[in-house]
């Protein structure tokens, strides 16, 4: 490999400066603020500030509801990632086989991604409204009494569907691109050897898609963990009971509704730790099963 040398001593620093500035302003600074806030107790207006050490963290870990929220979040993220990737894969495989009108289908499938999470939340909230929602009406006709205001399971399904629906588009794009990158000659050769469509999918396409799938798994888990509080806020507000309080929603609610910045900052520090750990685990263990 050819080594690049700069003649001026400061040029390399200058070139990398924008990236460093962005990282400082949008990541390091807010993250350090969160760390700082997490050891303080403040009234809402910031008039009185007191250093409380790790009391905010201690309080959280003594709160059974906060611990329950972990279970809720893990269940929720697994379901969102599973559902959105599964559906996207099926759609991508079907779209890959379509020859006519392919662009139209693709555009339609990508559309939901342009919808903001809160809007998606309201949309699904309306469809599943137990009194006036058309989806709830259909379920009722099939003999299922849907009421996400009262039934925690229904509420969980609602936020999973709302969160996954939007992500299907994103996943679809990547799966489709991944499928189209697989050389035709491979599948054709397998077909000549007598492998049926299912066999070809399992033994050729799916393994070759594994890098894409791995990437999407990371992205989807991060999405479910961090970007879906708008959906929860617009559909269930964490209810019924505490059944749909995912961690990031609790961070948002405690800070912006409860005005309890100390606890909220402590929670976001914990979340930051989780996402670092999660990414590390994914790259350390799951990536081994990926064939590039």
């Amino acid at each position, binding site marked *: 490999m050819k080594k690049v040398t700069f003649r001026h001593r400061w040029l390399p620093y200058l070139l990398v400066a924008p990236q460093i500035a962005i990282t400082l302003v949008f990541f390091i600074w807010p993250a350090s603020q969160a760390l700082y806030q997490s050891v303080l107790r403040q009234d*809402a*207006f910031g008039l009185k500030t007191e250093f409380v050490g790790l009391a905010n963290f201690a309080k959280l870990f003594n709160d059974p509801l906060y611990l329950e929220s972990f279970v809720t979040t893990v269940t929720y993220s697994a379901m969102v990632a599973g559902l959105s990737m599964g559906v996207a894969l099926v759609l991508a495989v079907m779209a890959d086989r379509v020859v006519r009108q392919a662009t139209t289908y693709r555009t339609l499938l990508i559309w939901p991604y342009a919808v903001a999470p809160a809007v998606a939340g309201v949309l699904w909230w309306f469809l599943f409204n137990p009194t006036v929602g058309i989806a709830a009406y259909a379920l009722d006709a099939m003999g299922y009494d849907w009421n996400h205001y*009262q*039934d*925690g399971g229904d509420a969980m399904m609602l936020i999973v569907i709302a969160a996954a629906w939007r992500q299907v588009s994103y996943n679809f794009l990547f799966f489709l691109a991944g499928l189209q990158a697989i050389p035709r000659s491979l599948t054709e050769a397998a077909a000549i050897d007598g492998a049926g469509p299912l066999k070809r999918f399992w033994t050729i396409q799916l393994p070759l898609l594994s890098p894409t799938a791995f990437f999407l798994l990371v992205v989807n888990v991060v999405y479910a963990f961090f970007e879906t509080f708008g959906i929860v806020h617009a559909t269930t507000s964490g*209810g019924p*009971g*505490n059944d749909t309080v995912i961690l990031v929603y609790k961070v948002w609610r405690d800070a*912006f509704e409860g*005005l309890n910045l100390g606890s909220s900052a402590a929670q976001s520090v914990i979340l930051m730790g989780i996402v670092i750990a999660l990414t590390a685990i994914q790259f350390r263990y799951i990536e081994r099963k990926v064939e590039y």
Partner: protein
Amino acid sequence: MKQTFSATAIAALMALGASPVAAQTEIQFWHAMGGALGEKVEEIATGFNESQDEFKVVPIYKGNYTETMTAAIAAFRAGEQPHIVQVFEVGTATMMAAEGAVKPVHALMEDADIDWNADAYLPAVRSYYSTPEGELLSLPFNSSTPVLWYNADLLEQAGIEEVPSTWDEMFAAGEALQQIGHDCAFSFGWQSWVMIENYLAWHNEPIGTKQNGFAGLDTELVIDESESLTNLLQRIADSTEDGTFEYGGRRGDSLSLFTSGECAMWMNSSAYYASIKDQAEFAFGQTMLPLNTEAAEEPQNSIIGGATLWVLEGHDDSEYQGVAEFFDYMSRPEVQADWHQSSGYVPITTAAYELSKEQGFYKEEPGTDTAIKQLSLNEPTANSRGLRFGNFVQIRDIINEELEDLWAGNQSAAEALENAADRGNDLLREFEDANS
């Protein structure tokens, strides 16, 4: 584009014509009134702006109550706070505790040397926002109280001649309705406000110690100590089984249960008048909240919800003069009566109530005075003047969570109230620590 153009044009005209206009002092007013109510707020501001030429009030819509309050607090922390901000009743303790951030209304009016009488406001409204010494802290603006809405057509079909006035009659109505094949008798929204805070005030029982928090920060919730409340909530939870009660969400979400005819009665704010009138395709009415005869023989008075206007510190005295004059303008009977009649909120001054009577509003729209009658039924007691607990926005969330676990059959009413009180007390202690 068009808007930008006309804005520029106006700016240019003002610059041309204008030295006297340029001297106007601007007053920022952040509020949470969307839609038609927001337009009405604009109208009030315009009315004031046209009444004099020294000050200009600029109302800005900031989202729902929570969003408006947190936006103002964030702005204060950044030193960019508005002069006036509309804060809902549960934010009162937070605002009150913020000494140095808030300018009390009574002081504002005194400094501005305006002849203004706080006694013009209804006792039930005034006492909620006053110090224990009776000094008014924020300007009452939009207040409401929960009432019992009923579907007159359905009750008639079921042969119920009088609208229920006690909880026994509510359940009896449920049976009568089920005999004609109608499941849901009643539902309610804002359950902490309607079924706990107001229930206790209505039956003259305390919500918390220290005069419901009015007399100090070291207060504790006692909602789990009311036997009649525990029994009633258990009875309601049991009645979900045959569908007599149906739960439909935390805030106003269950409105559709009532307007679609699914539930015959609905307990929620009197301020739903406009929505119900707009949506219901049946004869409806509003009446006072039902009484639990196990707890009291006569109702006491209900307590308010809604919001008041708070003045934030950090501006020039000349600007506060304008705020005071604007508040004085808003307190006029004709402004208040008009706001009450178009919004469904209660008339908050006695004069506005009298004026509305004179104008024949209650004859034209029967039942619209239920809320105010309910609020002024008796002189408020320590149990019924309102509540002032810190972190109450979060405590309401807790109460919602525990009650939802009750309606779902996961716990008993006694457990729900006990959990809510315990978890709420933790937050009260946290607030006490942060503010003392």
